[in-house]
């Protein structure tokens, strides 16, 4: 009994630990640890979102009225820019005058945004410091940019990754579903036992090939083909990911759909044939409609596989974290992001927590898929 419960305990532990690591995300500061943003005292703006800060530092927002302030051009000053306003002698040989000068500068310029390390903030600093803002859920779930190494305000926008995942998975399922159903029909209804004995092991083998080998195959074969066919600058695109994932999802779809078709009662088939229907008419008028719920589970399961697949996608999709517009652009999926970035981040930071939050989202998606399959299966019984 104890050993029986271990899977349930594992699921519970997964939930606990993923949430534990991810929970700090919305308490993490919007600007880099150890730095502050300072404004002139007369400036009415007291709050900036993570996205606004990034746009200011990218030079895309240049006036305070765009972020709810007065009509006043934004004057961006970093620590290194202080030398433009003061000579090195004025700042002191060991930069001991920086706190005083930074304070003075902030007081003089009404449109200033001063970005400097905390330890350079004077005790009697003459200006307002940006309040300790934390990342808002809206910035994460609605954020259009994933740029976790941006300075001073890292961007953790979910949308490009989520859309990338959906594009690649949908592409994969569109490619492999017709294929999978056709093969399932052939296996369940048409082919002889001898052919089935050849096809079955082939499909099992296809399921057994490690994902990293699929990725490698995609990288050296499919990517160059796509690049040549569509005359693209790079072949690492969402389409490459879809093709590789489509092949990988095939065994799942075939097996589940075939099992469903085999459960069609013999009597129904025979009745249809006895009424004069051809074998083909029986297949598409009786067998396929009857096994609809099984085929649906096959599709959903295939999508689940595709969404969670990591290595193959990581190797062939190009990993550009931008919102995709066509299948011929590089994309980056949620699992690929986790795999690519987790190795480089320090434990406990905002970036680390954001990656665990991605894990939580992935986990929730797959849970929904598992439960919906359970539901589809139940519905069939009640019918």
């Amino acid at each position, binding site marked *: 009994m104890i050993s029986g419960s271990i899977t349930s305990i594992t699921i519970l532990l997964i939930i606990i630990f993923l949430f534990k690591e991810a929970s700090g995300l919305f308490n993490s500061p919007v600007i880099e640890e150890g730095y502050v943003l300072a404004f002139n005292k007369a400036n009415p703006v007291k709050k900036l979102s993570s996205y606004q800060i990034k746009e200011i530092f990218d030079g895309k927002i240049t006036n305070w009225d765009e972020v709810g302030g007065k009509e006043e051009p934004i004057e961006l000053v970093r620590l290194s820019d202080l030398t433009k306003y003061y000579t090195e002698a004025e700042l002191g040989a060991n930069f001991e005058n920086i706190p005083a000068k930074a304070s003075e500068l902030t007081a003089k310029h009404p449109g200033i945004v001063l970005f400097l390390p905390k330890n350079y903030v004077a005790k009697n600093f003459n200006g307002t410091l940006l309040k300790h803002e934390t990342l808002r859920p809206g910035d994460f779930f609605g954020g259009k940019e994933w740029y976790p190494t941006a300075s001073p305000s890292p961007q953790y926008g979910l949308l490009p990754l989520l859309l990338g995942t959906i594009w690649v998975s949908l592409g994969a399922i569109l490619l492999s579903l017709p294929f999978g159903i056709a093969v399932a029909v*052939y296996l369940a209804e048409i082919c002889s036992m001898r052919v089935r004995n050849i096809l079955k092991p082939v499909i099992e083998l296809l399921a057994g090939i490690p994902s990293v080998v699929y990725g490698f195959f995609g990288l050296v074969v499919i990517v160059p083909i796509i690049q040549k066919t569509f005359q693209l600058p790079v072949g690492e695109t969402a389409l490459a990911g879809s093709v590789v994932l489509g092949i990988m999802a095939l065994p799942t779809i075939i097996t589940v759909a075939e099992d469903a078709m085999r459960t069609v009662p013999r009597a129904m088939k025979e009745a249809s044939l006895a009424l004069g229907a051809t*074998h083909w008419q029986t297949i598409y008028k009786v067998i396929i409609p009857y096994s609809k719920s099984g085929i649906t589970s096959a599709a959903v399961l295939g999508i689940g596989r595709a969404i969670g697949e990591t290595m193959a996608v990581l190797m062939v999709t190009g990993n550009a974290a931008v919102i995709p517009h066509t299948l011929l652009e590089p994309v980056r999926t949620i699992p690929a992001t986790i795999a690519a970035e987790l190795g480089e981040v320090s*434990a406990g930071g905002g970036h680390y927590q954001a990656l665990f939050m991605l894990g939580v989202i992935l986990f929730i998606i797959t849970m929904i898929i598992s439960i919906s399959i359970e539901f589809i299966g139940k519905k069939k019984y009640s019918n």
Partner: protein
Amino acid sequence: MTPIINSGRTDNKKRLSQAIAFTIFKLMSYSVVLILFLILGFIVTKGIGVISWDFLTKAPEEGMTKGGIFPAIVGTLCLVLGSSIFSFPIGIMSGIYMNEYAAGNKFATFIRIMTNNLSGVPSVVFGLFGMSLFVNTMKFGDSILAGSLTLGLLSLPLVIRTTEESLKAIDKSYREGSLALGATKLQTIRKVIMPMAFPNIITGLILSIGRVSGETAPILFTVAAYFLPKLPTSIFDQVMALPYHLYVISTSGTDIEATRGIAYGTALVLIVIVLIVNLLANFLRSYFAKKVKTN
């Protein structure tokens, strides 16, 4: 007369559409075989030239552009062994519990749903979880132990399910016969049920070994080392592993062209492992099936 001619026409039409549809299905099915042989053929032809005794028994040299993959092979073996030690006993026991003791009750149904859910969890999430629990919280560090436990959890649903299915396939009359002869439930399971279910369970276990040896995402943050020419000495050491090695040298090596050959070789070794595992499983399945029949 007319209706008969008409029906003859529709008959022809029906037959034609059936022929067309069946041909399409047949072609699609055979193209699946074609895909498999394309992948296998490509990797075998490109990789076979790289494989040599030295390649299999030497450590990588000169920034991984020369030398072999021996440490990665050993690492993968360690991980397979470690995860099996963990997942086989627990998986088999819970399979027995669910089918023999708790069959049909609410608790077993709940566990079954949870097992299904667990098998749908993406491998990268297992990686995150393993890192959080084993590496950080339990302070195992990046080690064989942490990696094996993570992989063990990943293969657990597969082991449980095969055990359960093998037990389910055994006819009720054997259980009843044994119980009627005065054997206890435990004796029945040990002496009657397990020997009969054993072949199928073994087949499932072998397939799960195949899966574990090819997984990359769960070991990324729990055990895998980028480059580590020495062999592990304890379960708290990091190791190289074949799938991770293939990933690294095919995407982020310093000189991708120079390492391509080694990448083909590594892919071939991985494929061969999978082939052996599948053939072995198929062989055992048919071997035991014959044996049961002749008995």
